[in-house]
């Protein structure tokens, strides 16, 4: 498709090479599990960027979820002060 062929020409900033952009985009592609598995030359930059955004958000959620679990663990062990001290030291 003609538009795909010229994908690399999308950047309007002259100082950045198209190869650079596509290289970065492919790096991103490698990092994102879902996109990586479907690796092909046809994966558009737009899709990769989209996947990146979503992936970052999901990682954020995971981090928050895990943090919350840690906090919940701490809260649940408040009865045992020694334990709580241990876990609090973990969180601080």
């Amino acid at each position, binding site marked *: *498709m*003609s*538009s795909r062929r*010229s994908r690399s*020409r*999308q*950047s*309007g900033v002259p100082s*950045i090479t198209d190869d*650079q*952009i596509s290289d*970065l985009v492919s*790096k*991103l592609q490698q*990092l994102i*599990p*879902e996109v*990586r*598995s479907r690796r092909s030359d046809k994966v*558009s930059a*737009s*899709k990769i*960027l*989209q996947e*990146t*955004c*979503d*992936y*970052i*958000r*999901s*990682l*954020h*959620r*995971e*981090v*928050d*979820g*895990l*943090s*919350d*679990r*840690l*906090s*919940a*663990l*701490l*809260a*649940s*062990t408040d*009865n*045992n002060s020694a*334990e709580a*001290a*241990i*876990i609090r*030291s*973990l*969180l*601080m």
Partner: protein
Amino acid sequence: MMYHCVPDFDMDEDCSIPTSSVLTRPKKSAMPDQDDVMELLWQNGQVVLQSQTQRTHKRSTPAKFDDAVIPAHQSGSREIPSHQQQHQDHLFMQEDEMTSWLHYPLNDTNFDSDFCADLLYPAPCVTTNTTGTPPVRTNRVSDSRPPKTATATASRPPIPPPKMTESFVQFSRPRPVTETSGPSNSKSLMVRESTVVDSSDTPAVGPESRVSEAVRSTDGASGMNNVCRTLSGAGLAGTSSAGGGGAGGGGGTRDLTTFEMTVTSSPGGSSSSAEPAQKPPAEDRKRKGREADDECHSEDVELESADAKKQIRGSTSTKRSRAAEVHNLSERRRRDRINEKMKALQELIPRCNKSDKASMLDEAIEYLKSLQLQVQIIAIELSFTSMKHLIYAPIQQAINAAPYSYDEALCLFLILTCIYVTCQTWEWELGWAWAWAWAMDMGMNRPMMPFPNVLAGSPLPTPAAAAHLGPRFPMPAFHMPAVPGPDPSRIQATNQSDPMLNSFSMQNPNQPRVANFVDPYQQYLALHQMQFPLQQLLRSISSYAGADQIFASATDIINCIPLFLFKYQKVIKLQLIFFQNQSMTLPSASKPSSSKGAENPENHPSDLKLTYTVVWWVRWVAQGME
């Protein structure tokens, strides 16, 4: 008989030990659920109330939503609760794996790659149970609890969801959505977002949708920034300030997601599960629809150009110009799409002030890597915390545990302590020091072990003493209960026996470091009263450590610890580098040759406690295996 009990322990604990193993990005399930979420949609120029599933079906046809703006934000917004739900469920499901590596030999060769690789590159996973997920999980927990009580923790509380509800009540944002009851809340949340997004149907209105999302983020950020940040920072604190900084940095956007996660978790019931099940397929179809839209659009463009060519036969220049026009048009649309996505990406990356695309992409890549690491690290922390939390009680019951081989206990403890201490303090040498110290304590016959006393603030050992071994580092003072049947009081007393450490000569590892407890000779006797299958323990430890070979003895494990730590070190340094670039406050960076200062005093007691806890746990396991 002995080792059979270990699997029992496994199974009992399976459902309850959060693990650090495969943390994957939840794969969108393909199962639509009973509850049909009604949405306000902008369709064909009108606001239409539609069920979500209906809408997604419609999207498969060449639709008016030919631009990426809507799907981007819709999928993002809808993905959040579903992902969180699946994520919770998925994390919960991983406990089996974690427990098994703790207690059971795994596939040696592949485990390391699986363990680390999966954490670094979470593979999409399938959420098997999407309907009524929280209740299911709670049930699993409660089911596993009674049998576990018999053997293990009596006091382990249920898994977070109810707690999260309570603790998250304060997370009410200035947003219109304030109620915390299930379906209506989630639905209204979705409706609102759909409305906002859908109102920006055309590409020309694209920036508006992003602005609205940014506004929402800002609202949430201002409203619950502190609370969120505290928790996130707290949760990440094992990675010390790096994690906290990351949480704070990403707090703006993350508040949005956290709140949405809360929203779905607070119902704690079928309502939240109904949505996640729906959203993934909706999102999948949305994405596919979007791709199809792209292709359809491009095909339309080509059709147009073909038509143009047909109509103007013989007028080559006009045909060419028309084709070029069409081409430029599609090209411009592509560019717009991609630019919008770049901007969205830029918003996600904290403190991204790069204006050019290449550096922004660079930053995105680094940030992504660091996020992956962060997840991994927090998972490890969580697993260790949970382990401590789990075993603390039963271990106190298992004071008079049966004799166990100190080789086994040593190995296991070494690995776990190294990992734990390292994750806590980022002090690889420190973790190793713990292992070494314990090995020395147990008479591993390693001469010239440097044992500076951190708590007393004493300087490093004499260069001569330290010359034999690579790492030079301060070490917290601790003592291990070396003999079956020590009482906790003596353990506590040992915590303050710093002067003893100070007085120890380096040449006598078997010296009275454990004099508090028992005659070292008795202690040594206890070493070989074991019935624990050494080989199995060694295998499991080696598999966890990622070594390819099976350790023949405890000494081998000790020798491999640095390698294992090094592996993790590489993984974690990446995150440190990223945050360094972000000019954040770093935890003390780990360098093999540097001698880091003493950790915070408050760390020591907890490390000690973990030490004791681990030992007790090993004993308890051994007891169960008789």
